[in-house]
Every structure is written in C-alpha cells, then in structure tokens.
C-alpha cells in the first residue's frame, strides 16, 4: 500500500514543508513551556528548598523517631495494600472476564468508581461506615487497619484494569490442553495463566503502590494523626508541617516521598518488562 500512496507519487512543495517545520518548532516550544510552567517550575522549587540545608538537614528531618515511624508505617501499610490488591484485583478481573452473571457490566463499570469519587468523600464514608458510629459495628478508625481500608479503596482499580485486557486477549488453547491432560484448575491457573498475567500484574501493582504512598484525602479523616501512636502517614506529616509553616522540613519529607514513589514505579516497571521479556507470549 505504501507504494500506492499518493504521497510517494507527488513531490512535496517546498513552501508547505518549511511552514510545517516552523509550526512544529513553535508547537514543541509551547508544549515544553506549558509543561515547565505548570509542573517543572514548582518541582524545581521543591527540590531546591528540600536540599537547601544540605543532605545533613534532610537526614536530620528523616531520622526524627516519629518521622521514621511514619515512613515505616506508610511503606508498610502500602505494601500490604498492594499485596491484597494483587490478589483481589486479579480475582475480580478473573470473575469479570471469565464469569458471566446478571449485572456484570454494571459491576465492571463500578470498578472505576475510586477514580471518579473524590478521595475526601471516600474517607468520610469509610469513617462513617467503619468508624466509631459504624452501623455494622466495625470500628477501625484511628488504627492501621483503617488506613489500610482507605488505601484499598483508592487503589482498587489499578490491578484489575491492568490485568483485564491481558485476560481477555489470552489464548485459551494452552489451558484447554492442560485440562485435557488432567491438570486441576489451580495448577492451570498457577502454571499457565498467572505467568502471562505477571507483567500486567506488576505494572498495576507498581501504580497502586505509588498511589498508596502519597494518598492524603482518603486517610485524613480516618487516620489518628498521632505521631506517637503510629497513625500518621507521610502525607499527613507533610501536611502538618505545611500547616505549621515549617516549609524546609515539609520540603525535605516531600522530596523523600517523591523519590520513594519514583523508585517504586521504576522498580516495578523494570520487573514488569523483565517478566514480559522472558515469555514468548
């Protein structure tokens, strides 16, 4: 078809080509300018403020016992949330793709709710439902479980939406062959399906990890904000510093949180790509 393309048959007129290049440069400049003004400038200010006192100051801020505790809590709870998401996210994706029941499309649409519902509304309702005035008599407010619950809500769609397309596109031949040869469903899942889901699963897990680390709106009402009881996640510590107008310490902690999120995304991205390289699918 390329040989038939009219573009090959007719020489390009010089005038048009030159306007094209000029336009392209202008567009690139505008684009880069917009991006710089909106995103890069503030982040540069953040970086500069956080490292202004030198690495020593950053180290001092991060090694305050309660801050260190908040960091451990944030990473710890987020990690647990990621694991739960990996399991349940895959399960939900499986049910949505392989199963069929009335109302399935509604359930499928519902998965995106955490993307659409404001985090503060989620936090408010989770506190009302699973807090001190809970109608189902479950009170996890001001505990790590409450924080985990809030994070589970906001990260719900990531793994499911990452895994679904892979499951849909999966060729069932191998599974059917294995079944014919006598393998049980669990073995089929473990040996055939799961390895194919690996890269997508890791990508979704990485996204949900990074999101969980930085979540603020959903946890602000349900966490106890008590540095001594270990119910302060990093975003709440940073917010407290901002409220107290301690910008250098807030900036230092923000820098650490940012670096952590980026590291997580990089690592999970690498793992995901490595895994997809090893498979011939």
């Amino acid at each position, binding site marked *: 078809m390329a040989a038939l393309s009219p573009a090959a048959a007719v020489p390009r007129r010089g005038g048009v080509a030159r306007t094209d290049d000029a336009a392209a440069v202008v567009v690139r400049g505008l684009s880069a300018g917009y991006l710089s003004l909106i995103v890069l400038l503030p982040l540069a200010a953040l970086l500069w403020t956080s490292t202004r006192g030198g690495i020593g100051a950053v180290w001092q801020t991060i090694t305050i016992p309660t801050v260190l505790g908040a960091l451990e809590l944030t990473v710890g709870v987020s990690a647990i949330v990621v694991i739960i998401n990996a399991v349940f996210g895959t399960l939900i994706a499986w049910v949505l793709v392989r199963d069929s029941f009335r109302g399935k499309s509604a359930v499928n649409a519902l998965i995106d709710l955490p*993307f659409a519902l404001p985090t503060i509304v989620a936090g408010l309702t989770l506190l009302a439902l699973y807090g001190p005035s809970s109608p189902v008599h479950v009170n996890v407010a001001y505990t790590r479980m409450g924080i985990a*619950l809030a994070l589970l809500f906001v990260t719900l769609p990531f793994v499911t939406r990452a895994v679904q397309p892979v499951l849909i596109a999966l060729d069932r031949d191998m599974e059917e062959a294995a079944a014919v040869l006598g393998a049980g469903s669990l073995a089929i899942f473990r040996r055939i399906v799961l390895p194919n889901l690996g890269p997508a699963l890791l990508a979704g897990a990485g996204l949900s990890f990074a999101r969980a680390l930085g979540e603020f709106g959903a946890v602000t009402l349900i966490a106890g904000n008590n540095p001594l009881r270990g119910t302060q996640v990093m*975003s709440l510590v940073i917010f407290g510093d901002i409220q107290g107008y301690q910008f250098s310490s807030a900036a230092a902690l923000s820098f650490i949180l940012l670096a952590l999120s980026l590291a997580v995304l990089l690592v999970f991205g690498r793992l995901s790509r490595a895994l997809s390289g090893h498979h011939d699918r």
Partner: protein
Amino acid sequence: MIARFSLRLVALGYLAVLLVLPVAWIVWSAFGGGVDAVWRSATAPYAVHALLLSVLIAVIAVIANTVFGVVTALMIVRHPFPGVSILNAFVDLPLGLSPVVVGLSLVLVYGATGWLGPWLTAHGITVIFSLPGMILATVFVTLPFVVREVVPVVREVGSEQEEASRTLGATAWQTFWRITLPSIRAGVIYGVVLTMARALGEFGTVIVVAGNIPGVTQTLTMYVEAEFQNFDPRGAYVASLELAVLAILTLVLMNVVRRKGVA
C-alpha cells in the same frame, strides 16, 4: 462449579464492602432527614458557591489540558524529537505525586516567601489564597490524562489520511480539524472525562494552596470536609451526594465511550 460460584461470591463481596456500601451509605445519610432537608442543604449559599467554584475550576482545567494534551500527543507520536521520552516521563509525573507535595511545591513558587512571591506581591497579583492558584493546582494534577488517552489512539489511527489529505491540497488547519480530530475523538472524550472527574475530586492540593475560606476559596470537596467538622453531617453528605452523582455520571460516560470504540 462450586469454585466458580465461590470466586464470584468473594469478588462481589469484596466489592460490596469496599465500594457499594459506601456509596449506598452516602445516599442513605443524605436523605436521612427527607427530601426537604436535602434541598435546604444543597441550596445553602456556601454549598452552591462551592459547587459552582468546583465546576468552574474543572472546566478551565479541562480546556487548558485538552488543548495541551491533543497538541502534545500528536507531537509525541507524529513528530518526535530527541528527548521526547523525557517529555513523556514528565507529563506522567503528576500521576505519582502526593497532593500535599504538589500543593507545597506551588506554595514554594507562588507564595509570599516563594520564588515569585515578592514579584507577585509587588504587582498586586495574588495566586495563593485565590482562584488563580487553585486553577494552577488543578491543571497540574490533571495534566497527564488527555495526553495518555490520546497517544495510543493517535498511534493506532496512523497518519496516512493526514498525509494523503495534505498532499491533495488541504491546509494544515483543514487537515487537523476535519481528519485528525474526528479520528481521535474517542480518546479525547475519554481523556476529558477523566480530567473532569479528577478535577472535581481534587482536595489535598487546593486545600494547601487556597486556605479553604468559605464562600471564597472553598470548593465542593473542601465544603464536605468543613461541614463534617462543623457538626453538620447532613450538609457534608448532601455535598458528597452531589459529588457521587457526578462521579457515577463520569463512570457511565467512561463506559459508553470505551464501548463505542476507543481504538
């Protein structure tokens, strides 16, 4: 058979506890005092102002980021340049940032003690504690969506039609308006819907940047938190209901657009 049924049960149960119950609770709590009470809460002056403010900021963010998004997506796919992958990475950056970190970085530039602070004060321009700051914050956090949704569509659609049309004499503008845009329409709509939803739901960043002054810089999400803390749970739930309705509308739109064939 049992395995399939129990899997379904576990999955649906998990979703019920985490998603369905909270949404049902919002509706239940909002209507707890009857429809009259809901109307009264919804038409309270601060509530109305908060809603309109949220919508206004969201609309501006959508327009700005759609223009940027479409232009940048076309540029990334059709006219790449050395360093385009860095641009791509930076565009995705807001997705991984905590809202308080974004808010802080904006205050560090535009606040009274920030990089541009003294210049802004000297010229009488207020960014922090007022609308421009809130718009900047919302544009920041919703930057990636249109780009991310349009890039794959542009890749999929290919550029043969544009090339052909240009060769046959249509101007760049004609080509863009009549061929390019319609072909990526679904991706743009999807990105716009995501941007709108995220903008309406923004809370952490704007609260850091704008100070939550009722009737002035209080968006609907901030209003929810304020009413909750001011012992007016009904006001908080009614506002939450408004946001939940908008969220469900978003879900419906996303679903419809996705089905109609994002490439």
